[in-house]
């Protein structure tokens, strides 16, 4: 019904009838009657349109016919007059010359005999096609014909296309049926309309009168039909608005009842693939994100380690580099790169320079933290209190006890920072598991990992702090070793606080329990989860070792599941071993914090002060030069990348390894240019 309304609207627009603005309140209409009425009106309108088209076509044809008759009549009259004049001239010559022209007269008689057999075709052809039309006809008949054309001054309405076209009237005289068929084909090809007429003048006039009469009749009929059509359309327009409103309401109600999305124009394609990952970064954070992405691209919606890396990476570098003087050098280099940022961004840099420019913000952060850690751990202020308030006591410098003290300090500092970093990583794994609603990973991955790490190395950190606070002389090294070797022996002089023995026993037991806690439950729970999902059962969280035995019996019964249990078990075994051994080796690898400052002291003491001691200008200049070369060449250009790589490893192994899967892929917008490049590859 909506389609019919649109048809009516279109017809009214063509006829120039506008639908009425106000709609009649006619509540008696219901949909069935409306549909019947619209159907009837549509049929009537279509019939009227068809009849009008036929009448118009016939009318146009008759108009052309009339034009052809008029023009051809003129042509024939003109030709006749010329023939008469020509004949008179010939008779005059015959009379004058007498018997000499007898052969000419005979020849003329023969010509007259031939003319009786000629045929002719008349019609209309497009003016722009008239010249090629004439040329082709001459070629087809090999010149054995006569063609005459006349121009019609005003445009003619074409019966076929209904447009006003400029046309010519033509008459073709020919001999023979074969030529006639050729001419007919050429007329069809050029779209020329042909009309029959007689060569008798009186008959021509009679035909013109008949055609004129028919034209007048058709004109009256067409006018009557148009009036009828206009009346019908006005009637439709009177009700059109109301009908449209009614149908629109019904469609809306149907849409609501069916709950279908009629207006939806797009379709969501379901896929089981994981979406790509995209992190929004700016020029400051993009380089830190690159460090993280070098390890692996995050899985979709996985926690991004790049957030903390912005601070922790430069900090760990600074702990190793830890020199305020060289920190200032790094800061100046970074500031230079930042000031020339716009210029360098548009230039083509070398490999090393490109990398340095890309990481200019990392260099700046590393420099700032280096200056801070250098102050915090090396130089200081005048001693005014019992404990030095900031940094290391300068009295310690140059004494025999400097090296043991600093080594002890940095070793313990490494353990504290390393354990803190690993704990941060494990806490991140908790947030990951919580976000993905993975209870298995919370209770059988996060919890035992926290217990294991802090039972052993967290406890070691606690012992370090207690030893510093109380000034105890306990040997932590022996203490940790004998906790494992002989946990029930007396602590002796290594005791730090009351109840330490019992606490160590409890912590040791917790660490021992945590390992199978990590290893065993997760594969069985995953297997059970798979079975329940396969059988459509609801999931219940298992707890306790009795259920583990039950799972084992089930695993024997269902040995050929799609779920590959042995693979999952081996994966979990590898993961558990990696964590346990990793906790030990990662703590040891934190000792790489000890780097750099020893080297700096060596250069300072052995080169510069030694040169100063000789009290010679030339030797002093040479010493300063060597010191500068050593500072720039070794400490800045070689030691900085070394500390950088150590910090990188600490981040990847100690921090990201604890929670980061990194098995996603990066988001790239679709581009045809990339397709072309791929095709070339």
């Amino acid at each position: 019904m909506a389609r019919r309304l649109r048809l009516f609207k279109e017809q009214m627009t063509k006829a120039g009838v506008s639908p009425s603005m106000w709609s009649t309140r006619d509540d008696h209409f219901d949909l069935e009657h409306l549909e019947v009425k619209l159907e009837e009106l549509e049929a009537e309108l279509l019939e009227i349109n068809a009849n009008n088209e036929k009448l118009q076509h016939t009318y146009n044809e008759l108009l052309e016919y009339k034009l052809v008759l008029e023009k051809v009549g003129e042509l024939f009259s003109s030709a006749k007059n010329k023939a008469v004049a020509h004949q008179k001239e010939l008779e005059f010559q015959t009379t004058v010359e007498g018997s000499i022209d007898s052969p000419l007269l005979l020849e003329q008689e023969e010509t007259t005999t031939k003319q009786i057999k000629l045929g002719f075709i008349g019609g209309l052809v497009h003016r722009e096609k008239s010249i090629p039309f004439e040329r082709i006809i001459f070629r087809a008949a090999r010149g054995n014909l006569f063609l005459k054309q006349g121009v019609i001054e005003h445009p003619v309405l074409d019966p076929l296309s209904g447009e006003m076209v400029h046309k010519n009237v033509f008459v073709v005289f020919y001999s023979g049926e074969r030529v006639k068929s050729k001419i007919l084909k050429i007329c069809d090809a050029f779209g020329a309309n042909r009309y029959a007429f007689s060569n008798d003048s009186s008959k021509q006039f009679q035909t013109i009168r008949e055609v004129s009469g028919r034209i007048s009749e058709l004109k009256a009929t067409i006018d009557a039909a148009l009036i009828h059509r206009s009346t019908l359309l006005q009637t439709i327009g009177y009700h059109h608005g109301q009908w449209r409103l009614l149908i629109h309401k019904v469609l809306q109600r149907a849409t609501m009842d069916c709950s279908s999305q009629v207006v939806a124009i797009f379709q969501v394609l379901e896929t089981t693939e994981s979406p790509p990952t995209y992190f929004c970064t700016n020029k400051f954070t993009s380089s830190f994100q690159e460090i993280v992405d070098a390890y692996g691209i995050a899985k979709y919606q996985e926690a991004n380690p790049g957030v903390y890396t912005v601070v922790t990476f430069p900090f760990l570098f600074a702990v190793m580099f830890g020199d305020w003087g060289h920190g200032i050098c790094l800061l100046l280099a970074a500031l230079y790169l930042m000031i020339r940022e716009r210029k360098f961004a548009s230039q083509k840099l070398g490999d090393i320079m490109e990398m340095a420019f890309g990481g200019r913000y990392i260099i700046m952060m590393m420099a700032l933290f280096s200056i801070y850690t250098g102050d915090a751990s090396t130089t200081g202020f005048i001693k005014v209190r019992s404990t030095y308030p900031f940094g290391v006591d300068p009295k310690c410098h140059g004494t025999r006890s400097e090296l043991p003290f600093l080594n002890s300090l940095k070793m313990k500092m490494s353990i504290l920072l390393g354990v803190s970093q690993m704990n941060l990583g494990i806490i991140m794994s908790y947030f990951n598991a919580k976000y993905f609603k993975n209870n298995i990973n919370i209770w059988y991955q996060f919890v035992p990992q926290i217990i294991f790490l802090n039972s052993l190395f967290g406890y070691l950190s606690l012992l370090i702090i207690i030893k510093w606070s109380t000034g105890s002389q306990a040997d932590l090294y022996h203490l940790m070793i004998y906790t494992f070797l002989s946990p029930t022996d007396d602590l002796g002089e290594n005791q730090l606080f009351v109840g330490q023995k019992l606490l160590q026993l409890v912590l040791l037991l917790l660490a021992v329990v945590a390992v199978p806690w990590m290893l065993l439950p997760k594969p069985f729970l995953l297997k059970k989860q798979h079975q329940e999902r396969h059988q459509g059962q609801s999931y219940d969280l298992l707890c306790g070792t009795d259920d583990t035995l039950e799972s084992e019996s089930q695993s024997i019964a269902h040995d050929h599941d799609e779920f590959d249990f042995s693979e999952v078990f081996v994966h979990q075994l590898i993961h558990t071993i990696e964590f346990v051994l990793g906790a030990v080796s990662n703590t040891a690898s934190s000792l790489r914090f000890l780097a750099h400052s020893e080297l700096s002291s060596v250069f300072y003491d052995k080169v510069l002060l030694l040169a100063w001691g000789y009290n010679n200008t030339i030797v002093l200049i040479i010493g300063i030069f060597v010191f500068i070369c050593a500072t720039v060449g070794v400490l800045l250009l070689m030691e900085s990348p070394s500390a950088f790589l150590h910090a990188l490893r600490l981040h990847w192994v100690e921090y990201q390894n604890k929670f980061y899967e990194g098995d996603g892929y990066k988001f790239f917008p679709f581009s045809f240019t990339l397709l072309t490049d791929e095709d070339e590859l």
Partner: protein
Amino acid sequence: MGFLVTTLIFVVIGIIACLCTRICCNRGPSTNLFHLTLVITATICCWMMWAIVYLAQMKPLIVPILNEGE
């Protein structure tokens, strides 16, 4: 006692830094949360660095030996 006082100083500096970051670089809730995380992490790292060195020197077992020889 010096330990607690300086720790309090670090906390105050951290809070002031958070407020300054919020005021100066206000760019939507997500970015503000990011900045807050960075400031807190930096404050904790700096405090940890200071605290370790300070604790190590509270009661040193290895004291500076001004005279040559053990």
